[in-house]
């Protein structure tokens, strides 16, 4: 095994480790139209808004949604959605985007086509849910 191959293997292993979310970030994006989704916030969205979540009064994503698809939807909503200041002193910005197709269900079980993403002043996703 030559040195170049060994170095490539070490580099690949290092990249794999940095890609595994532990207590850090599930995704780090730094461009202006993309946001940071931390592992803990991703867990929050899964626990409260995944199709198998039992949380009452919260919109749910469609069954089968993958984490990668969720990230794509969040970034699309932030990039193309309507932005407004968060309300009544809450920090951050709300982004709302209509995907023109069902992405989940509303709190009363109806079809939801829109996504609301709450983003902190540090450009981190706080929560995201269909409505």
């Amino acid at each position: 095994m030559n040195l170049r191959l060994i170095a490539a293997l070490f580099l690949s292993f290092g990249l794999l480790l940095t890609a595994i979310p532990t207590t850090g970030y599930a995704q780090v994006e730094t461009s202006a139209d993309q946001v940071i989704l931390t592992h803990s916030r991703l867990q929050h969205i899964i626990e409260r808004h995944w199709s198998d979540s039992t949380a009452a009064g919260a919109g749910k994503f469609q069954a089968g949604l993958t984490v990668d698809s969720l990230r794509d939807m969040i970034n699309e909503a932030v990039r193309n959605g309507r932005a407004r200041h968060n309300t009544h002193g809450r920090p951050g910005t709300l982004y709302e985007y209509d995907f023109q197709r069902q992405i989940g269900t509303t709190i009363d079980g109806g079809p939801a086509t829109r996504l609301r993403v709450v983003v902190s002043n540090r450009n981190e996703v706080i929560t995201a849910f269909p409505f």
Partner: protein
Amino acid sequence: MHLDYRLNEDRETDWSSVTEEDLRYRVALGNLVFHIGNKDFSADWDWIPLVDLAASFAEIIRKLEAGSPSEIFEFTESDAWVRFQRKGDKVLVSTSYGEGVAEVALHSASAAVKSFVERLRSELDRKHPQAAHNAAVRKLLGAG
């Protein structure tokens, strides 16, 4: 107007270090108990951030008292809302999730919200003594 809450048990939060964002979205979660006359606008979803709700309702009352014609409280994890519309000395209250419109005197709504804030602050201070010294808690619920 009956405005109350049910605070979930919480033994995990370090109340010395909670931030405003934590209080707005992640800690002191529970249910809203909200009746006006025979209208029930309660929300028993278990995840409502009660400090955020208390601070937001207080802000809404301040704005209504200052002359705002209408204010809307948006829940943090859904598109559900509570609308407050000023009509002279009265406030019309409606929600996206409950039936009908209720009417309450603005001074009654103000007193109910003030009492809600004080009871929540007292319960948090009693259950989590470090909350009394947390700057974010004091900012949102007052110093007591």
